[in-house]
């Protein structure tokens, strides 16, 4: 191992310690929030206290929230100005996904209605 490439064991300044603690807290918060969203979703589906249609809607809502939590806390995506280019990429992908998924579902369920139902 050549020393010039390795930034080994430098003293860690206080500002870095604070930054590290803040980022650690972010991961812990993300993990806790994810658990808080996952477990109710599973209990709702398993218990079946609501009618199926409402349960579907509720678990889809919880999933959407959890996806936002993962983006925010694990992938560090936020609305800061310096992130805008990347936010554009992600939002554009979201748009494409929305168009293709909704379009696919629309066409396939429409076809089923026309051709397969009695």
């Amino acid at each position, binding site marked *: 191992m050549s020393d010039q490439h*390795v930034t080994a064991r430098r003293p860690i300044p206080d500002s870095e310690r604070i930054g590290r603690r803040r980022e650690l807290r972010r991961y812990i918060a993300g993990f806790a929030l994810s658990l808080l969203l996952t477990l109710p979703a599973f209990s709702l*589906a398993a218990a079946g206290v609501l009618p199926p249609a409402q349960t*579907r809607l509720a678990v889809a809502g919880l999933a959407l929230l959890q996806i936002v939590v993962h983006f925010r806390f694990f992938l*560090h995506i936020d609305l800061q100005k310096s*992130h805008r280019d990347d936010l554009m990429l992600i939002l554009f992908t979201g748009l494409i996904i929305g168009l293709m998924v909704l379009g*696919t579902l629309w066409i*396939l369920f429409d076809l089923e209605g026309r051709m397969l139902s009695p």
Partner: protein
Amino acid sequence: MSDHASAMADREHRHPGLNLDHTDPEGHASAEPVIFGFWIFLMSDLIVFALLFATYAAMSTQGTGDGPAPAQLFDLRIPLLETLVLLTSSFTLGFVSLANKYEGHPRQAIGWLVVTLVLGAGFLALEYHDFSTLIHEKHAGPQVSGFLSSYFLLTGTHFVHVAAGIAWGMVLIVQQAVLGPTLPVKLRVMRLALFWHMLDIVWIGIFTFVYLSGVLA
């Protein structure tokens, strides 16, 4: 760039995800193109998954044919366990990212990466168990109906991604041990973290739209 300007640039976030910023200003500057490029890959990968989800949504309601319906096949115990294992692995990967950013030596990063990959392997074992139960005990292999084809295609693609992530992580363990925390290795660890977190996001879709919605008849 003057010292002042580069100091300003170091404070900025140059790309999504955990930035190296002040802990490695030089690396931070060169991270932007590779991380942004990797995000483009991730987003196109996400589109692949989105279309597999759309296919599954149509097939699981219209394409069961003479085969079983989702509610007759799925129960929630193993998916819950898989979800918790994968979520925990995403969390432990956070420690890898922090060690990658802040530690001058790679031992901590390697340790947490090993934990993450073991959890990933546990997830694969559970999923493999699920697949083999479906195929051998419930006689619901991918050739039975359109629903099952799209189920195995969707979950199988995710399975292959996680397996690829584990192989990638093992290579990075070796690289960190042999090369130390050099800039290329750091940037690779950052990209693995993005890849892994994104797979966890895809899994949120799978457990919600395949398993949770599936058990509701």
